[in-house]
């Protein structure tokens, strides 16, 4: 029998500490939609998405009601569009983005991921066309998310793709200058992109995935923060890790329950629970504040990387046991604009781009939702991407870059995106140029995996 304390703990986690399921993401394969006629291809895409995802939002809401646990987002991830579209005789892929937008709108989801290409070793014709159409596609849609995988541990880094992405990120921001460059918030450049990530903007339905699957992303930084705050001030770091593991276990169980139930009701297979601590702009729902609760005065101070390493590892250890299938990104997220504690640290000058980069070597995802000056050269953006890809490649982990060069903005200015994307100060970028390095192009060879020091 459950005890009253256990029941109250769960209630408190949901009502006071922002425990929620961040997303139920339905992955849909579009491989069978390829067609030489682009219009017919788009019609197949639209029909398939609206058929398979017709009940997604409704099922999400039913589960939310019955179990009393908020499910913040219901989303869709599809096969990387470059793979589907390149069979069509067309140069401009904007119509595929617009088709995804229409399908997303029809089923009532706020984001659809998969306007993507996998180019870690080189480009096909479809990959190039897709990448070229990203700025326009993101400017003329509101729900479509794009991602490009430019590196893996097994293949190295495609530096030609990195150089192009520097331009693409900048152009995407420029085409949405009237909205402070928000288009770039829906574009991720990846190393080792996971095929079953439920979180936007980097979600896509990988080629090894089944026809259709439900992946769930959990949340709950507030729960972990409160648990740490409630520990005695002299509790040692081993005790903190132990506590975090237990909380991560409990949070992940909610994801497991919701994922299985959603898959059952939708009649599709259950993919994974992504055991990530995903912050929101709400006060208290912050990864930075967890690190501060551990004893770092401000996120970004010396000690931050070590504290984050402890947190990330403990979340994985606790979460791994709580779910039968763990996947996706699985780690602590550090998106600056989406995390009130990160925003404060950046505004106070405690958190720099370089420190954020160091932090990404021990946690998931990478340089995320960071606003940089609009006049940052494309080669510098490419080099920031290259550094982050190198961290992912060498450490055998996923890293991503989602940065917004906000048009017309200077360091210290503020950018407001609103909603879950939050707000952030523009942070400075090194003025020294990597242009000659980026201009070389080519591939950085795959790293050696033995002799591991």
């Amino acid at each position, binding site marked *: 029998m*459950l005890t*009253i304390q256990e029941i*109250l703990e769960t209630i408190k986690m949901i009502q006071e500490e922002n425990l929620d399921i961040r997303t139920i993401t339905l992955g849909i394969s579009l491989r069978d939609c390829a067609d030489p006629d682009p219009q017919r291809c788009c019609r197949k895409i639209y029909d398939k998405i609206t058929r398979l995802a017709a009940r997604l939002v409704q099922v999400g809401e039913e589960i939310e009601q019955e179990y009393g646990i908020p499910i913040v987002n219901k989303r869709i991830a599809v096969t990387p569009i470059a793979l589907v579209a390149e069979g069509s005789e067309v140069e401009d892929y904007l119509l595929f983005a617009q088709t995804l937008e229409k399908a997303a709108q029809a089923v009532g989801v706020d984001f659809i991921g998969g306007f993507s290409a996998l180019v870690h070793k080189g480009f096909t014709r479809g990959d190039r066309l897709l990448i070229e159409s990203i700025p326009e596609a993101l400017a003329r849609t509101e729900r479509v998310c794009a991602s490009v995988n430019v590196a893996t541990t097994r293949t190295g880094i495609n530096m030609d793709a990195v150089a192009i992405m520097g331009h693409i990120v900048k152009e995407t921001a420029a085409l949405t200058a009237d909205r402070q460059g928000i288009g770039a918030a829906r574009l991720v450049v990846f190393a080792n992109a996971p095929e079953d990530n439920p979180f936007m903007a980097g979600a896509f339905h990988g080629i090894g995935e089944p026809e259709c699957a439900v992946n769930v992303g959990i949340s709950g930084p507030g729960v972990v923060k409160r648990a740490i705050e409630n520990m005695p001030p002299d509790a040692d770091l081993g005790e903190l890790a132990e506590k975090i593991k237990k909380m991560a276990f409990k949070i992940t169980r909610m994801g497991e329950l919701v994922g299985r139930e959603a898959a059952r009701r939708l009649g599709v297979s259950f993919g994974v629970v992504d055991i990530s601590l995903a912050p929101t702009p709400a006060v208290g729902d912050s990864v930075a504040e967890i690190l501060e609760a551990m004893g770092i005065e401000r996120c970004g101070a010396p000690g931050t990387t070590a504290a984050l390493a402890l947190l990330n590892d403990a979340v994985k250890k606790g979460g791994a046991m709580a779910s039968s299938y763990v996947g996706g990104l699985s780690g602590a997220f550090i998106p600056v604009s989406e995390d009130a504690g990160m925003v404060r640290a950046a505004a106070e000058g405690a958190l720099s781009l370089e420190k954020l980069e160091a932090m990404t070597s021990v946690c998931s995802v990478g340089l995320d939702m960071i606003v940089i000056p609009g006049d940052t050269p494309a080669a510098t953006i490419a080099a920031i991407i290259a550094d982050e890809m190198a961290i992912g490649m060498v450490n055998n982990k996923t890293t991503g870059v989602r940065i917004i060069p906000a048009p017309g903005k200077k360091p210290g200015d503020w950018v407001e995106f609103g909603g879950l994307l939050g707000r952030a100060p523009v942070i400075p970028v090194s003025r020294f140029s990597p242009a000659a390095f980026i201009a070389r192009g080519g591939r950085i060879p795959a790293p050696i995996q033995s002799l591991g020091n």
Partner: protein
Amino acid sequence: MGTAPERIIVTVLGKDRVGIIAGVASVLAEHNVNILDISQTILQEFLAMIMIADISRCSVDLNTLKERLAAKGRELGVRIDAQHEDVFLYMHRI
């Protein structure tokens, strides 16, 4: 609805006063929901009451029942929630 036991947990949180248990129990009884267990604790002057109930013969769906309970809660000045038991079992039992 079938007759296999389907259990929900009703939680009542708020300032203690006369008639809370009676109020919640009457809503449940009106809808043919069987109360299996009640426990409560007082935290400072606040009441935390928990009922485990079987809704397998409930005359309305869970959402409607939740709305009726919430309405009763507003009348009594407390917060009343009802959730499927699995939420708690999944979190606290392996």
